[in-house]
């Protein structure tokens, strides 16, 4: 029987008979773990961090159920606690709630239906609380990113604008036509840089906010789009562009994410070439079979120093002394891959080249 999807619960009682009868009663509904002392209970919790509900007998030698709950609260804060007892004095109820953070209280001898409803309610509570924790973490991450973004945006968006303002100031005193033309060319570059940044930003938010649109992917079409974008770059920059596509069977995925990934990797491969190299190349291959696509982008450019390999996917990290990097490209790649459950591997050597291998599962 498949026990993996059942709710995991832990029952602690010093009476072996109670343990046996509890397990017998509930093993069909839940994945039941039992322990006849608190040390053993802690062991079970360590082995099974996804136990969501703990039921404990109150009267045990050595330690009461409430004391046990109180003790494990810091180390195992997530499971929801239910206390089972035959003695119902008000004092122990109060201390159970206040000290042990007990969710429910069950009287002995227990009714099977009562126990089940208590467990189900506790599990619901567990799920909600955990979801809240996950959401909180996401929110924290979003805040941090926003901070980083605000800092970088003033630099990356204001930078080109201020450059242009600086040149405008210079042109006021420039008289030679050649000089003025040179300055106009520089202003153009600054604006292109700003535009590129804004487009990356747009990509970033379409990955983030956008819903995935899963369709059948024709990788020939992906290749054609990339060829349209990079064939000219290849000629102008004198970089050989090797392409190959192999698609066996259908592949379903999000077209936009796949293109953002391919585009960013290719853009980098062409950008980070060694200026003085003889036989510059970028190779781009797609192999789609057995429900997964492998995209490989390789170049013989400047490479990535080993110490930076872990940072290249970080937002706004720029590893090279060039002025065209926005620190967005590979971050966007990683983000897009996270959304479509893809993986990326990078191997690189300085002055030899880089190789990025992307694996994307079909939906």
């Amino acid at each position, binding site marked *: 029987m498949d026990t993996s999807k059942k709710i995991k619960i832990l029952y602690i009682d010093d009476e072996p008979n109670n343990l046996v009868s509890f397990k017998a009663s509930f093993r069909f509904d839940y994945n039941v773990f039992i322990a006849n002392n608190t040390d053993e209970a802690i062991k079970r919790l360590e082995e099974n961090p996804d136990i969501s509900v703990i039921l404990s007998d109150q009267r045990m030698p050595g330690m009461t159920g409430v004391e046990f709950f109180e003790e494990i609260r810091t180390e195992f804060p997530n499971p929801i606690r239910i206390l089972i007892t035959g003695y119902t004095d008000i004092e122990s109820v109060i201390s159970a709630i206040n000290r042990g953070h007990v969710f429910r209280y069950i009287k002995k001898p227990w009714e099977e239906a009562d126990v089940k409803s208590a467990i189900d309610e506790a599990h619901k509570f567990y799920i909600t609380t955990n979801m809240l924790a996950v959401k909180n973490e996401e929110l924290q991450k979003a805040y941090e990113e926003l901070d980083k973004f605000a*800092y970088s945006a003033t630099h990356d968006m204001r930078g080109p604008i201020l450059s242009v303002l600086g040149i405008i100031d210079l042109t006021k005193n420039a008289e030679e036509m050649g000089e003025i033309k040179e300055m106009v060319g520089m202003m153009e570059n600054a604006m292109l840089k700003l535009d590129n940044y804004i487009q990356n930003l747009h990509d970033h938010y379409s990955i983030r906010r956008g819903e995935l649109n899963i369709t059948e992917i024709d990788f020939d079409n992906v290749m054609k789009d990339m060829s349209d974008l990079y064939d000219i770059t290849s000629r102008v920059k004198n970089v050989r562009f090797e392409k190959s596509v192999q698609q066996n069977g259908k592949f379903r995925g999000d077209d936009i994410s796949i293109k953002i990934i391919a585009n960013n990797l290719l853009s980098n491969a062409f950008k980070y070439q060694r200026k003085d190299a003889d036989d510059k190349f970028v190779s781009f291959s797609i192999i789609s079979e057995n429900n997964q696509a492998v995209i490989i982008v390789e170049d013989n450019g400047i490479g990535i120093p080993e110490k930076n390999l872990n940072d290249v996917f970080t937002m706004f990290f720029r590893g090279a*002394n060039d002025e065209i*990097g926005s620190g967005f490209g590979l971050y966007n790649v990683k983000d897009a891959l996270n959304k479509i459950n893809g993986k990326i591997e990078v191997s690189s050597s300085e002055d030899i080249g880089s190789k990025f291998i992307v694996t994307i599962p079909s939906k």
Partner: protein
Amino acid sequence: MSVDKMNFIVIDDSKLDCFIAEKIILNSGMCESVKVFQQASQALEHIQAVGTAQGTTVVFVDIQMPVMNGFEFVENFEKMPDGLKKNYHMYMLSSSINENDIARVKGYDSVRRFLNKPLTNDTIKAVLEEFNA
């Protein structure tokens, strides 16, 4: 009393901003020499090589640069011998309006002050006047 012409070093990863700074400096009429670096590490090497062979030098360094940023540059510079350091006068430039960056600039003994980008004729005039005291 008016000072002699001065030497300048510009460090900025943006080619464009280097160009602007160079022009502005040349236009000031107070320029003995100007050196431009797009990588802070190369500027450090240059300073090390020149040592004390050169007179008063004004250094304009951008804060946000890849690989070695302006702060890292200043920290490396501050490790150099005192005799050499007193020849160089640092100004840190940035396009970001970040209070933390501006506050951090104040913490470095070798940095005279923070300047907003872009460098203009007026800014450089103000900087040069600081040496006219």
